[in-house]
């Protein structure tokens, strides 16, 4: 009889398990924060206090002013708002959006919308490790008609941390505002400086799903791309999900306070995965920058292995991971990030750790992975190729 293995969740880069502090705050705010903060009665004033306190706490954690920070219905909405609003606010300066080739799909979809509306997008390449080509970036942002530049702070797929401050300096020289997608960095690492707009997503740091952050620094030309609404200072329409916002900010503070010690604990586990996978699994390509990277995320590709089959095989052994392989995507296209880096896209696995991930979890994964890959290769008849 098969023993059902205990579950090991290794897909934090998609969504971290809900932080215990987020759960407590959510339950309390469901009782206390259900009313509309914009109304004029006792319950509404309580909700307004909660929302204002959440905004101040989030702003303080990120080192920005409360009136620069808006809550959005998702990280995706925050990214769309940053891109489309940044372009709209600078339409007199030009219609060119400069972005790296490895942006999150939310940014690329906003770019597609911009191009469909008559705008232009300039894509800046990355190298084999997923590092931005800074020379090409500087050239691109210096060209005429650039309204906005967008750069992911750290790759959600391969973990490579980007040279944000150098990219920001090039933008400043050219007078172009920089939008940074910091979804994988907020709550884990100090966020670099020099940007004009930033977005993040609460479920990445242990907050509930359905809360994003949009920060637009004072003096940045930005106009809401959405139909007019008085909510969130006119930046985002619709009532915020206040209980979720309260929970998101409580967990943001907790995750940020604990970030350095978590990074110190998780980075060696990621180092171990990088080294052991490369040593114990034949014909594997561990991708992403080995040094300048996120502390909790590692990606590798196994030659001749079907990515979907690998995910299912790992799931049967209790391991939850994600993949950039084409067979695991709804579009049946390989990850544009792996494509831009020119690395193997099939048999791809992304492992991302969270505060509850243990050394024992990682060691069990490392003990089982070589056999799982060998079995799949055996079934496909590709051993020895």
């Amino acid at each position, binding site marked *: 009889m098969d023993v059902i293995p205990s579950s090991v969740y290794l897909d934090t880069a998609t969504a971290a398990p809900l932080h215990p502090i987020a759960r407590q705050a959510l339950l309390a705010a469901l009782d206390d924060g259900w009313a509309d903060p914009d109304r004029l009665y006792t319950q509404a004033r309580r909700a307004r206090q909660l929302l204002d306190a959440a905004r101040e706490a989030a702003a303080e954690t990120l080192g920005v002013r409360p009136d620069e920070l808006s809550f959005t219905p998702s990280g995706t909405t925050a990214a769309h708002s940053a891109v489309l609003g940044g372009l709209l606010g600078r339409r007199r300066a030009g219609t060119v959006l400069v972005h790296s080739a490895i942006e999150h799909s939310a940014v690329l979809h906003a770019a597609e919308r911009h191009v469909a509306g008559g705008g232009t997008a300039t894509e800046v390449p990355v190298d084999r490790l997923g590092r931005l080509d800074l020379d090409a970036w500087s050239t691109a942002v210096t060209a005429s008609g650039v309204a906005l530049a967008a750069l992911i702070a750290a790759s959600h797929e391969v973990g490579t941390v980007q040279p944000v401050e150098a990219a920001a300096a090039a933008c400043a020289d050219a007078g172009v505002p920089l939008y940074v997608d910091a979804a994988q960095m907020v709550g884990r690492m100090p966020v670099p400086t020099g940007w004009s707009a930033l977005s993040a997503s609460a479920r990445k740091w242990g907050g509930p799903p359905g809360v994003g952050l949009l920060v637009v620094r004072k003096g940045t030309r930005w106009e809401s791309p959405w139909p007019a609404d008085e909510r969130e200072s006119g930046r985002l329409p619709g009532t915020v999900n206040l209980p979720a916002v309260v929970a998101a900010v409580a967990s943001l503070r907790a995750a940020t306070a604990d970030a350095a010690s978590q990074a110190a604990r998780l980075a060696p586990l990621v180092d171990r995965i990088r080294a052991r996978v490369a040593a114990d699994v034949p*014909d594997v*390509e561990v991708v992403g920058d080995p040094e300048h990277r996120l502390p909790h995320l590692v990606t590798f590709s196994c*030659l*001749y*292995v*079907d990515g979907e089959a690998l995910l299912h095989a790992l799931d049967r052994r209790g391991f939850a991971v994600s993949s950039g*392989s*084409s*067979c695991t995507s709804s579009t*049946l*296209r*390989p990850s544009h990030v*792996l*494509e831009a880096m*020119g*690395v*193997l*896209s*099939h*048999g791809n696995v992304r492992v991302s750790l969270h505060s509850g991930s243990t050394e024992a979890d990682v060691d069990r994964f490392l003990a089982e992975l070589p056999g799982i890959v060998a079995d799949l290769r055996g079934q*496909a008849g*590709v051993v020895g*190729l």
Partner: protein
Amino acid sequence: MTTPAHPDEIIDCLGQRCPLPVIALARRLPELPVGAVVRVLADDPAAAVDIPAWCRMRQQEYLGAAPGPAYDIRRSR
């Protein structure tokens, strides 16, 4: 990169999903003499990434893409 108009052999992987085109290439190329050129016909978009990546991992020479969509590889070792 230039692609030869007449490869020594064509492997038809149209309609196959990755990693099958790469596997077909890995099976066939070592059976051909060093210097031979194989053209892999593959319409899975992942082949455009994975065939050059395989060539790099196996130290074989990737010559480039051709209409088809197709990818030309020379056995170099």
